[in-house]
C-alpha cells in the first residue's frame, strides 16, 4: 500500500478535531518549523522537495516563495492566500481535503505563512463549499484557542491571523490576481503582471497565493523531509497527487496516488473502467481547461511534464471522460457555455469571442451549422490563445475546443453535413 499523507486521516463524515488531529501527529510541523527552523530554511526545504503547484499551472512552489521580499526591510503586512476557490469543472479534490482534514489545512497555512513571514492568511473559499466553511472556521477557532494562531505562536515570537473568506462565486476568482481583487472587495478581474503578487499583491502588499492541495503537502515535507517526499513520486517533481475521474466510469471519485500514475491505472483500476457498453473516446486529463487526450494516451504518466509532452496539461489532475455514446460537440458546447458565462468581461476576445463560439456550437449541434462556422471555430482557437487575451481563461477554454476540433473533427463535419446531431434520435 502506497503512502497517502494527504488523505490518510481524511474523514468526510466526521473530521478529526484538534485533539484527534494532534493525536495522529498533527501540528508537529508547526512545532518543528516555528521552534527549530528559520523561515528561509522552510523555503529551502520546500524548494528542494521540488513540489509544483497543484492548482493547474504547476509552478515550483519553492521558487514562487523565494520571490517574496523577506527580512526587516520587507513591506508589511504580508499575506498568504489559500486559493480554495475550486471551480474548475470536473474538479473536486480540494473539497476532499478541506472537508476531510480541515486541521491539516490550518497547519499548512501556519507553516507556509511562517516561511514567507506573512502576518495574515486568508482562505479564499468557493462559496458553495458550505461544509468546508463551517469545518475550517471551527478548526481556526480551535487553533486560536490552543495558541497555534494569534500572537506569539508557541512562544516563537511569530504571530499570524487567519480568516476564511467565502467567494461570491465566479470561476475567474480561481485566477490568483482576480482572487486578490475579489478579496479586496473589487470586481473579480485579473490584474496585469508584472507586478506579481509577491511584490504588489493583496492591498498592494507582498502576497503569496497557493492552492489548497499544494499547501497541504508542506507540513508533511517538514515532518518527513525532502527525500521522503521525492520518493512518493514516480516523476522528478515530488509528492503524491489527488487524481479524480468523472464521466461514465463505474466508480467515479478521487484518490491520492503517486505523482505520475498512468491514466490507464487511474481509469481502469481506481475508477473501475468504463460503464458496460461504453467505450472510451477521449479524456480531459486535468479539468475542463485542458486538451483532450485519446485512448492512445492511456499509458501517459499523469505528471506535469509527461502530460505536456502528450499535448495537454496535468491541470488539476482530475479527469473528465468522454465516452462513445456522448456527442463531443455537445460536450464542448457545454464547456464553452460555462467559460462564456464565467468570462469576467474585461478583455474583448474572451468577452465577445466565447459567447459567439457558444452560439456557433449550439448551431452546429442543432443542425444549423455551416462550413464557415468550422473556419470561425478554428480561427478563434488561434485568436483566443495565450498572449492574445488578458488572462488564461480564454486560452484554457480553447484547450478542449481546439483539441476536439483535431481529434473529433469528423463529428463536427457530420453535424454540418447531416444538419442534425447524430447522437440524438
Amino acid at each position, binding site marked *: 500500500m502506497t503512502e497517502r499523507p494527504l488523505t490518510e486521516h481524511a474523514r468526510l463524515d466526521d473530521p478529526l478535531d484538534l485533539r484527534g488531529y494532534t493525536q495522529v501527529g498533527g501540528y508537529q510541523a508547526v512545532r518543528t518549523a516555528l521552534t527549530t527552523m528559520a523561515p528561509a530554511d522552510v523555503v529551502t526545504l520546500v524548494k528542494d522537495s521540488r513540489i509544483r503547484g497543484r492548482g493547474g499551472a504547476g509552478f515550483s512552489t519553492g521558487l514562487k516563495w523565494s520571490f517574496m521580499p523577506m527580512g526587516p526591510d520587507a513591506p508589511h503586512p504580508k499575506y498568504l492566500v489559500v486559493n480554495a476557490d475550486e471551480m474548475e469543472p470536473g474538479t473536486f479534490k480540494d473539497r476532499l481535503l478541506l472537508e476531510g482534514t480541515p486541521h491539516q489545512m490550518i497547519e499548512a497555512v501556519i507553516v507556509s505563512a511562517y516561511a514567507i513571514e506573512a502576518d495574515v492568511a486568508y482562505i479564499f473559499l468557493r462559496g458553495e463549499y458550505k461544509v468546508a466553511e463551517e469545518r475550517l472556521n471551527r478548526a481556526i477557532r480551535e487553533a486560536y484557542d490552543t495558541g497555534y494562531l494569534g500572537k506569539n505562536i508557541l512562544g516563537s515570537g511569530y504571530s499570524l491571523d487567519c480568516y476564511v473568506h467565502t467567494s461570491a462565486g465566479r470561476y475567474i476568482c480561481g485566477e490568483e490576481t482576480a482572487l486578490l481583487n475579489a478579496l479586496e472587495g473589487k470586481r473579480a478581474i485579473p490584474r496585469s503582471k508584472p507586478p506579481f503578487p509577491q511584490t*504588489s499583491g493583496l492591498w498592494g502588499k507582498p502576497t503569496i497565493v497557493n492552492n489548497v492541495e499544494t499547501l497541504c503537502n508542506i507540513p508533511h515535507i517538514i515532518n518527513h523531509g525532502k527525500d521522503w517526499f521525492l520518493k512518493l513520486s514516480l516523476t522528478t517533481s515530488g509528492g503524491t497527487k489527488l487524481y479524480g475521474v468523472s464521466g461514465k466510469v463505474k466508480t467515479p471519485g478521487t484518490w491520492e496516488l503517486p505523482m505520475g500514475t498512468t491514466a490507464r491505472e487511474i481509469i481502469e483500476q481506481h475508477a473501475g473502467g468504463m460503464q458496460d457498453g461504453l467505450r472510451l473516446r477521449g479524456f480531459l486529463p486535468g479539468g475542463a481547461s485542458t486538451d483532450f487526450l485519446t485512448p492512445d494516451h492511456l499509458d501517459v504518466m499523469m505528471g506535469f511534464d509527461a502530460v505536456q509532452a502528450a499535448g495537454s496539461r496535468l491541470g488539476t489532475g482530475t479527469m473528465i471522460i468522454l465516452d462513445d455514446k456522448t456527442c463531443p460537440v455537445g460536450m464542448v458546447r457545454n464547456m464553452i457555455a460555462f467559460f462564456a458565462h464565467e468570462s*469576467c468581461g474585461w478583455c474583448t476576445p474572451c468577452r465577445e469571442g466565447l459567447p*459567439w463560439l457558444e452560439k456557433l456550437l449550439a448551431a452546429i449541434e442543432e443542425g444549423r451549422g455551416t462550413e464557415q462556422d468550422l473556419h470561425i471555430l478554428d480561427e478563434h482557437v488561434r485568436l483566443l490563445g495565450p498572449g492574445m487575451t488578458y488572462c488564461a481563461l480564454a486560452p484554457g477554454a480553447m484547450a478542449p475546443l481546439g483539441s476536439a476540433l483535431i481529434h473529433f473533427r469528423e463529428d463536427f463535419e457530420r453535424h454540418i453535413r447531416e444538419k442534425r446531431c447524430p447522437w440524438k434520435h
Partner: protein
Amino acid sequence: MATLFIDNTAYDVKDGQNLLEACLSLGFDLPYFCWHPALGAVGSCRQCAVKLFHDEHDKKGRIVMSCMVPVVDQMRISIKDPEARSFRAKVIEWLMVNHPHDCPVCDEGGECHLQDMTVMTGHDYRRYRFTKRTHNNQDLGPFINHEMNRCIQCYRCVRYYRDYAGGRDLNVFSAHDNVYFGRQQDGTLESPFSGNLVEVCPTGVFTDKTLKQHYTRPWDMQTAPSVCVHCGLGCNTLPGERYGMLRRVRNRYNGAVNGYFLCDRGRYGYEFVNADTRIRQPLQKNKDGELEAVSPEAATALLSEWIGDGSRAIGIGSPRASLESNFALRQRVGAQRFFTGLSEAQMEPLQAIYDILKTGPARSLSLKDLGEADAILILGEDVANTAPLAALRLRQASRVQPMEIAKRLRIPPWDDNAVRNAVQDDRGPMYIASPAGTGLNYLATRAVQTTPDDIARLGYAVAHAIDPNAPVVEVMSNGLQEMVGQIAQALIAAKNPVIVSGASCGHAGIVRAAGAVTKALYAHKLKAGIFLTVPECNSLGIAMMGGGSLEEAAERLASGDADTVVIVENDLHQRAEQPLIERILSSAKRVVVIDHTMNDTTASADWVLPAATYADGDGTLVNNEGRAQRYFQVYVPEHGTREAWRWLLDAESIDQVQTAMAEALPPLAAVSDTAPPADARFVDQRLVRKSHRYTGWTAMHAGKDVHEPYAAPDPDSPFTFSLEGYRGPVPGSVRNSTWTPGWNSPQGISKFQDEVGGPLRGGDPGVRLIEPEQTQSEYDSPPLPSARREGEYEAVPICHVFGSEELSARAPAIAQRVRPAYIGLNPEDAAALGLSKGEAASLTVGDTECALPVEIIETLSRGMVGLPIGLPGVPVLSLPTPASVRKARP
C-alpha cells in the same frame, strides 16, 4: 532616449513610455480604445496589438498589446505585420458582435472613435449571425444621454468617472458579455465632471443631452477657439454653432490649462447664449418706461451724444467682460472715470491676489502644474465649487506622492491598474481650512472648519512655523497649533508644494496668508507654487486694468460731476447691497447698459445695447494664473449685436483696440501675442471655421435667397466664416479642430501634440502676463482673532458649482441642477435656535433681512451661517459679515 525599431526603421523615442504612446507620438495610426492619455493603460480592449520581436533575427515574433509594454532601447516591433493587423481587425469584429449598426441615427456619428478605428483596421464584414445582446438605458439627468446597446466595454467611463474624477454613482455591473455601465438606478449623475464622459466614451453610449435638444451633425457645426466664461480658470473650449444657434461646447485641449477635460458648468452653461433673455437689438425706454427697439444706427448716434467727450459720463466695467470691452469703456470715459464694477468688498481680495502674483516670490501655477504638486495647503477656498477643474487637478495631485510606491516597485506610471493596486488609497498631504466642508475634504489629510479670520491666522501660523521671521500668531487652539506643525513639515518636505486660496471667502487676509506661506518657504530657499482662484472669467484682467469701486462710482455720481453712467456687461444688483446699487442707478440721469442678457440692471436702464457673448464676438480674458487667452467669434449674430468694445470705440478691428491698450496699460501689452493678428494669412489663406464636410452651405439660406451668400467679413481674426481656406498646421491659439485623415473624433488631438498628453505643437494657447518679482518683501500683519458678540453670527458665503455663477444658471440644463436657496447652520446652532431642516429662518444683516428654509450643514463651523451665493432669493451681501439669525415669524 531609446531607439525603437518600427517595421525595421529606427526612431528615437522617450523611454519609460509604453509602445502605444511612442507610436502615436511618432504619428503612426495604431487603433486603441481602453487607453486614454489622461487615464493610462489597462490592456483590456486588446485593440492596439503589435508584433514584438526578440531581436533582428527573430522573424516569428509574438503579439503583444502595445499599451502594456514599456519601451526598451533597441526594441523591435511591427505595426504592419499581417498577423497583428488581422488580430486588430478581429478585435473590431468582436466589438461589432453586439454594437448596433445605428450610425446613421447615432449622435456620435461623424466624430466616433469606434467608427475611426473600424475603418483603420479594415474590418468591413461582420460574420456574426446571431441575435445581439440588448440593454435598457437609464435617465442620467439633464447632461448625459445614455444608450447602452452601443457599449464596447472599454471601461474608460468608469475609470474616468470613478478613478480619475472621484465620482461614485457610475459603475460597472454584471459580467461576461452582459457587462453594464451605468448607475445603480436611474438618476442624475452627481459628479460635476460628468460631461467629460461624452468625450471619454469612444462611441455613442454617453452623448451630450443638450446637443440632442437641438441636434446637428458634428461636421455641420461652425466653430472657433474659445475660452470658458463660467469661472476664473479660463478652460479652453470649442463651441459649435449652426443656424445662428449655439449647439454645444466641447473641450479644446490646452496642455497648460484644462488638458482633456471641462467641468459641467463650463460644458453646459452655454445655453444662456441662446436664451430668450438675450438682448438682440438696441432698446430705448419710452415714455411709459418700457424698452422698445430702435435701429443700431440711431443707437450709435445717441450713444455719442450721451457720452460726448466723456466728461459728463462715468463707465462701469465688469469682471465678466473682455479686456477689450473694459478698455474701450475706460478709453471712452477716461481712466479717472472708469470703475471696475466691483464693490470694495469684492475688490479687496482681488487686489490682494494681483499684488501677490506681482510681488511673488512664488509663481502662479498653471492648472497643469497644479496637478503635479506633491503637498497642498488650501486656505478658505472650496475649489470644487468655485473653480471645479482645479479640484479635478488637485485630485490628481493627491496621487503624486503615493506614486513613489509604484516607482519603488518599478511600475510605470501609465500602468494604471497596477499603480492603483500598489498605491491603494494612499494620498499625498493635503490640508484644508475653510468655513464649511469643501468638495475636496474627502481627500484631505486633515481638514478644519473655522472662521475666515482664523483661517488667515492659521496660514500665518504655518508661515511662522516655517520661517521664524514671519509674524507670530497666538491664541490658536491646541488642536490647530498641532495641525500647524504638521502642515509646515509636509510643505517643507515636499518637492513641489502649493498653496491654494482665492477670493470666494471675500477675505483679503486669507489671500495674504497664502502669500505669506509661500514667502516663508522661499525664505528657506524652498520652492513653492501659488494657486489663487478668482470668481469670474476676467476678474484678474479687471484687477490688472484697475479702476474705482462701485462705492466710488456712487460718490462720483452724487457729487454731480457726472450724470451719465455707461455699464458694460454687469448686473450691478449681483455685486453689492441694494441701497448702493439703487444710489448709483437713481442718481444718474441717464443709464446706458451694454450687455447680452436681460437682468435687473438692464431693467432700470434708459438705453440697452446688445453686446456679443464669447460665441458671437471677439475678446481676451485673463485667467487666475495671469494667462491672457483669446476667444474668437464663432458665428455672425443675426441682428445688431456687436462686442461692447465695438459699440464704444470707433475701431476697425480688435487689433486696434489691443494696440491702444498696450500703449495705455503696459502690463497688458503682451495681450496681442495671444493670437495671430487679423491680417495673418496661412499660405495666403484665412483659417476655416467650418469643416470640409460642412453641408447645406448653399442651401441653408435658399428660403431667402437662392444665390450662394458671400462669407461675412471678419475684420478681427484670421478666420473666415466659410469652409474654404487653410487647414494645415496652425499655432495652438487658433486650432479649432482635431481632424486629421482617419481621425474624426476628439481623440485625434494626439496628432496635434508634441507627444501624447504633452503641449500642443506650436505652443499651448495663452500668454502669461504676470511673472513675480523674486525679491523678498515684508510680511503683512495677520488679522486679529474673530471676536463675535454673544448671540451674533458670522455670515459666510457658500458656493455651488451650479447656481453660484450668473450666466450658466440661465442655461436650462444647469438650471435643473440648481438647488433651492437656504440658510446654512451648524446642527448645534440650529438646535440652539430651535430650528430644524426646512424650517424658515430669518437672517438680518444691517437693513437687509431675508427668510429662507434652514439647511443643516454638519461641517459648518459653529457661530457661522452659510449663505449660498447666487441662488434665487438669496440677498446680495458683502460677506463675511456679522449677522443675526432667528426663527422666522410665520
